[in-house]
């Protein structure tokens, strides 16, 4: 695509970005100068809003591609997925960094954000989440650092990180498993408050499985977006494969969730029209029914557009799910409706905008995509080289 054709589009997005950023800056001022009461619609009856429900819960969920894909490539040794590892790890790293930023807004005393690292309470799920998120953000930084080192041509630190890549990936997968599920465990403590559509002893399991689904969907979404906006070639065969796995994960989730609803006697509630019923149906339709049907039709699954649609629906569906668990599912017991204030929305929008802008900047200046570096074959053999280097010296074996 000729560059001149893209120019007006870019300025529109830049203008939108500046507008969102300015609103966000003013909202930030209100938040920190006047406190949570002035900047949110939170109250004693409704202490957690979208900064937790969207920015933290959805933020962590949408960044799940990082552990899903590093596990696929490094642990299961499915080398063919390597070309999409870097953008996925970048998305995850940005996602977690922004979750930390969002926490600064939500915490009443943000300057004490480090307290859980020093003042321990191992009985608290939130303590465990705090530690996992801190450690995993560090792991993601180390997983992404080689890209920066490569750009700066720093060979030594790059080699050191390559040497510990497997333990690093294993640690990342473990930490993700723990806190993705623990974000669900957070709500185990409110059996009376959360509506039976969502309260379940299996919340941690559901959060974990859906994180894998969302990780896959997010990888498809992000690959499609980058191929559109950065003129990068679409890795369609890989995305098709991810789409197939996504269908399987969604099916597993659907079966478990249905069984759970049935055994807790909550399934029959679907037949009684209520505020929660509509939200539940919306979540199921967007996140499960529609994408599963789409992905089971071979013609749709094979097409770039079909995959993209299925991925976007999955994302919307599980964003609805997280918001249902954290906000709408709690409204009846709180005896009130919670609608976020403009400042809450402005901050959330700014954080999303910063995420997109940071990704675009990184994509422009760092070797994220394989065709920028022209490196897929080299990248593919890099690890095998590293592994076989000792034996190669002994002359026993030649790397692939």
């Amino acid at each position, binding site marked *: 695509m000729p560059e001149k054709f893209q120019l007006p589009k870019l300025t529109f997005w830049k203008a939108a970005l500046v507008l969102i950023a300015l609103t966000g800056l003013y909202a930030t001022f209100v938040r920190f100068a006047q406190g949570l009461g002035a900047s949110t619609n939170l109250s004693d009856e409704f202490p957690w809003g979208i900064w937790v429900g969207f920015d933290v819960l959805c933020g962590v969920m949408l960044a799940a591609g990082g552990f899903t894909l590093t596990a696929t490539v490094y642990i299961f040794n499915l080398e063919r997925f390597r070309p999409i590892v870097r953008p996925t790890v970048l998305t995850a790293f940005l996602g977690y960094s922004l979750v930390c930023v969002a926490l600064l807004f939500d915490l009443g005393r943000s300057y004490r954000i480090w307290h859980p690292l020093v003042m321990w309470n191992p*009985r608290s799920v939130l303590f465990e989440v705090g530690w996992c998120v801190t450690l995993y953000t560090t792991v993601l930084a180390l997983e992404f650092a080689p890209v920066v080192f490569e750009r700066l041509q720093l060979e030594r630190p790059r080699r050191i990180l390559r040497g510990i890549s497997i333990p690093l990936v294993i640690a990342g997968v473990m930490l993700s498993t723990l806190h993705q599920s623990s974000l669900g465990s957070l709500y185990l403590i409110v059996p009376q408050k959360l509506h039976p559509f969502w309260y379940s*002893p299996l919340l941690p399991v559901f959060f974990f499985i859906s994180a894998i689904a969302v990780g896959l969907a997010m990888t498809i979404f992000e690959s499609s977006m980058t191929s559109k906006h950065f003129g990068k070639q679409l890795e369609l065969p890989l995305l098709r494969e991810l789409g197939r796995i996504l269908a399987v994960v969604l099916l597993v989730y659907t079966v478990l969730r249905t069984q759970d609803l049935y055994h807790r006697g909550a399934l029959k509630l679907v037949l009684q029209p209520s505020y929660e019923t509509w939200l539940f149906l919306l979540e199921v339709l967007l996140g499960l029914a529609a994408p599963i049907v789409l992905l089971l039709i071979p013609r749709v699954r094979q097409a770039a557009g079909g995959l993209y649609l299925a991925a976007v629906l999955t994302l919307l569906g599980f964003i609805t799910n997280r918001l249902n668990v954290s906000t709408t599912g709690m409204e009846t017991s709180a005896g009130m409706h919670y609608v976020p204030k403009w400042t809450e929305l402005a901050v959330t929008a700014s954080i999303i905008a910063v995420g997109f802008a940071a990704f675009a900047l990184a994509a422009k200046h760092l070797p994220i995509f394989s065709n920028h570096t022209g490196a897929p074959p080299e990248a593919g053999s890099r690890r095998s080289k590293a592994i076989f280097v000792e034996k190669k010296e002994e002359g026993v074996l030649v790397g692939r």
Partner: protein
Amino acid sequence: MSKSILYDATLCINCKQCEVACAEQNKLPYNETIAAEQKQSAHKFTVVLESAAADGKFMRKLCMNCADPTCVSVCPVGAFTKTAAGPVVYDETKCMGCRYCMLACPFGVPKYEWDKALPLVRKCDMCADRVSAGRPTACTEACPTGATIFGERETLIAEAQKRIKEKPDQYVNHVYGVEEVGGTSVLLLSSVPFEQFGYRSDLMHDPLPMLTYRVLARIPDLVGLGGMLLGGIWWITNRRAEVAAAEAPVRAHEEK
């Protein structure tokens, strides 16, 4: 032994002396407007509720100071502590303001200073400093009718049960707080169902922290097994790749 408060709603005359004493004890403002407020808040730790029917039935609300408190278990920085004497106390120097305690408390007790730039969680702490000095809580001392009394938990439970037995037509046959979420240091007697005043009747009799602890307790095993499993899978897949690579030249040679 652990101290408790027993509130008998049938003896309460809605004089609000407990509210006044509580405000004084905790250095909170108190005036007619605050007296009229029918809910707990960051500036009102205890409240005497009037029933909606205005039939002369009252009910107090204050922190229940649970035996195994939800707030103590959920706080990521351990800002809450259950003292041996009974009160559940809050260390404001630790709190970072995540408000998980507010979400989790089954009685909706912790309240937040929403209008402050640097807010804290506020709640009744059963006059911890007085209790540790062997004195009763401010609200008990102020109560002119004996509706609120203070003493050993076991003694108060026995007393409450005795009252129900002696006048079964005057009371709901239930001492609220004996079994709810594993027991609380505040015990309630009433002539009308507790739900009328927003006390939940659906609370389990096990402490709520068990719900999350059951899951958290599995984490160490999960880390050990998971790490081993992932390492094992990596070792196998990697070994396969190694073998395939080593055999490739041989195979290529044989095929010729």
